[in-house]
């Protein structure tokens, strides 16, 4: 009875540790391969285009609406203690430090982790990964490394662009709905925003990009057979990437801003 109960609690814990271990080994292996030739530049370029360039619309749209909504919320909240004037600076800091990287990361997770997991999962179930091996090509090097490196490099740029668009969204709402003077709004934004506000967000972006591509590749490479297996891998990739992004965001915020 007691052994059975302990087993019921222990098994999932052991499985969770095993999963973390497998993921850690996978990440280590990816980093190791990223530092050693051969380098597949064409695959890297294609991944950069897919992950970076084609994610710009979704990141931009997310940022502009978030910046606008943030301006409205801060104005409403700030008016309770006559602090409406902080809208430009709080929108800028909020976008650059938190909302730009986190929402951008989550949107890219939804778009990119799913497509990577589905693509690699399909390649696995149609024996394309085996075919790569028989052609003396390491699937980790050919498929995973270019995607992970591209996502890690592209995400900070996406975050930077998202920050700018989000701040613009706040500015648009500020001058059209909240009666801010355009020049004063922009001056306030520039005066209060520090380099590290933007820099920390971009560092977070790089970490989130790594997480997104890593989870997409990991679940794709470990996909079970059939359409159901690929579907499950895709779902797991998005869920795990999203949760890890939020957890990593908390940890990085602790490291960057509490000391």
């Amino acid at each position: 009875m007691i052994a059975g109960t302990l087993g019921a609690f222990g098994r999932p814990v052991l499985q969770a540790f095993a999963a973390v271990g497998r993921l850690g080994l996978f990440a280590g292996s990816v980093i190791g391969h990223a530092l050693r030739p051969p380098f597949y530049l064409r695959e890297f370029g294609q991944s950069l285009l897919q992950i970076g360039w084609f994610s710009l619309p979704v990141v931009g749209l997310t940022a502009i609406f978030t910046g606008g909504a943030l301006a409205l919320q801060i104005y409403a909240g700030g008016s309770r203690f006559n602090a409406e004037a902080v809208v430009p600076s709080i929108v800028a800091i909020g976008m650059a430090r938190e909302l730009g990287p986190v929402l951008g990361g989550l949107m890219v997770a939804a778009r990119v982790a799913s497509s990577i997991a589905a693509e690699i999962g399909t390649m696995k179930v149609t024996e394309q990964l085996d075919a790569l091996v028989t052609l003396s090509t390491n699937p980790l090097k050919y498929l995973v490394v270019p995607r992970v490196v591209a996502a890690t490099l592209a995400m900070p740029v996406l975050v930077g662009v998202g920050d700018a668009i989000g701040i613009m969204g706040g500015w648009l709402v500020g001058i059209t709905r909240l009666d801010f003077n355009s020049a004063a709004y922009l001056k306030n934004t520039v005066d209060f925003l520090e380099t590290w506000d933007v820099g920390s967000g971009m560092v977070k972006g790089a970490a989130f990009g790594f997480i997104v591509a890593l989870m997409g590749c990991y679940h794709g490479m470990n996909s079970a057979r059939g359409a159901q297996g690929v579907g499950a891998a895709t779902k797991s990739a998005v869920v795990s990437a999203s949760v890890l992004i939020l957890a990593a965001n908390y940890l990085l915020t602790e490291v960057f801003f509490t000391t």
Partner: protein
Amino acid sequence: MITLTDVQKAFGANRVLQGVNLNIASGTSMVIIGGSGTGKSVLLKSILGLVRPDSGTITLDDQDVTAKGRSGADRDAFLARFGMLFQGGALFDSLRVWENVAFRLMRGPKALPKPQARDAAIEKLRRVGLRPDTADLFPAELSGGMQKRVGLARAIAASPEIIFFDEPTTGLDPIMAGVINELIREIVVEMGATAMTITHDMSSVRAIADNVAMLHGGVIRWTGPVSEMDATPDPYVQQFIHGRADGPIESVR
């Protein structure tokens, strides 16, 4: 010479290979027959190292290919001796047909420049009966039979010493199956390659094989020249080659 000695492999409680012993002489064409789920593909993937056997040894020209601790370069050199046609073609969707065929030719220390690799790919496509204008299509734009031919062209592109064919005629109409069988036989003879084919298709067996081995119950049940296959008294082989429902092989597995 490929030699398998007491090769065993289990997936959980399912003991797929239970001690396979088999010799495939250089320059001959061996066809492995057996029912679905009897481990034919596992056997083939074990030789290539895509699946690691639990026990037993597999040697290629007296070198143990299952030995642990082989370097990446060793493994690349080993794999460079092989070509493989996968059951579903396993063509890379994101690459054009010629890039699929020339995949190995454009990589590694002896990589060809792109124009030469393309020319070589087109030549191989011609060899399998495909027109040069197929070269710039993507795999998804091809019929199943054409995909098989492209897979065949990719398998022979680097002139390997050993070629594996995993159910080469599955899903093809009888005429296209006959064309693929003829191509395989011609190519194997022309290149002097060692061939190992997995199939359920008895017309393929008769067209391709020098020797036949039947895998059943995780072991090689019978092996011998194709010319002796029809005359063997082995009830398993007789049931399989005549497709009878009654016999020692259970129809529900």
